[in-house]
């Protein structure tokens, strides 16, 4: 259980690192022992966020449980990376519920200029196994999904189903 949770988390975090690398031409990576993406630095919230020379212990270490499993709660980590405009940072927040990462949020903390603009444009969230909410309970004006299909298409589909059933 602990192992699968950890792997899922690594997948999420490496996804996030791609975003930051793309966004700012720098790199920030949730460094772990089996995540080989090079060049980034990541420090945990307990450590000095500005310690850019040291790779962090990885997100599973952040949970801090001796068994290696996550305790329920919200975990925050700071990441920093170099840009031509200077040092920039992001904040990564993980929410853990029932030993599963239920939410990941990346918050840009760029000081200004292009880095702030890029971070704002490209920061993204990632979640696995999204469940969603009941549509009937939402007060909305519209619903967007795949285009509703016209009568001709639906009639043809009905014909195929009838043929298949015959």
């Amino acid at each position: 259980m602990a192992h699968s949770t950890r792997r899922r988390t690594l997948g999420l975090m490496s996804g996030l690192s791609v975003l930051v690398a793309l966004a700012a031409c720098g790199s920030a990576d949730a460094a772990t022992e089996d995540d080989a993406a090079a060049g980034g630095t990541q420090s945990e919230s307990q450590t000095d966020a500005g310690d850019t020379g040291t790779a962090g212990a990885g997100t599973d270490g952040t949970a801090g449980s001796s068994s290696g499993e996550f305790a329920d709660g919200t975990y925050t980590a700071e990441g920093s990376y170099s840009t031509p405009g200077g040092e920039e940072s992001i904040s990564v927040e993980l929410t853990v519920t029932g030993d599963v990462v239920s939410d990941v949020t990346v918050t840009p903390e760029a000081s200004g200029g292009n880095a702030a603009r890029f971070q704002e444009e490209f920061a993204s969230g990632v979640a696995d196994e999204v469940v969603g909410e009941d549509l009937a309970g939402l007060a909305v004006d519209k619903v967007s999904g795949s285009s509703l299909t016209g009568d001709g298409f639906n009639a043809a589909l009905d014909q195929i189903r009838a043929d298949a059933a015959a």
Partner: protein
Amino acid sequence: MPRPEATTSFDAIGTRWAIDTPEPLPDAVLQAVRARIDRFDRDWSRFRDDSWVAEVARGGAGSYRLPDDAGPLLDAYDAAARCTDGAVSPLVGRALEGLGYDAAYTLRPRRDDGGALLTAPAPDWRTAARRSGGTLTLDEPALLDVGAAGKGYLVDLVSGVLADHGVGAHVVDAGGDLRVVGLGAGAAAGGPLTVALEDPRDTTRALGVLRLTDGALCGSATNRRAWGPGLHHVVDARTGAPTTDVLATWAVGGSALAADAAATALFFAEPDLVASRFGIRYVVLRADGSLRWSLGLDGKVFA
């Protein structure tokens, strides 16, 4: 815009349209809207044999004078082809026909003796076609299909017709592809349009709710316009086969053309690359059930 607004609904180009306006739409404006849609259909539909697209398909390789409105639409395809390594292409018409999505809605794919789908790559939009001025030159025969961006573009064109007739605030909805104009002027204007993102795996559920005051939201998913297991309309031009990695995408942008083209490109490319090329924000649901979304979206994702 006070709600409920006046809504005008009709069917065109194979989908349901709804136009929301503060006042009932005058007949003359509705006629202008319908005429614009009809003109687009006569040019770009591959489902009628008197269209420009059908004429090009019959003519084979050669040069053709483009419809007057082709520029922005094909520019969007150029951008989508570049950021998806050719996966998005307006030359996928024959591939879709081979899968059964043809003018007669045969919906029966070509298969080999073992039952496997018979697919073939579509001509590469980046190399097999060239545009110069108002002329399109095809090096090989091709059936155009502008399903990836055409509907969004038409939503923009209809929005433009409304603006030309003095209908300032409006919502144009073509089967869930939306262009919103003028809902940003505070509570008196009715506030933002709220839009639920339908979960393609269970259409009674929503993956999020977005707000729009000015701009466009387009979505694409493989659950509708689907006619069998693995048979749907989002085709990879490089293989000619329906794509499988992504279930649904949404893009929010300034124009419905950009949002629609981006929504298709999001099936095939790194989302942030698509976001930068089209100036959009996105939500992507992958086949493994994971969700990725731009934090800059106005709204909430239920993740």
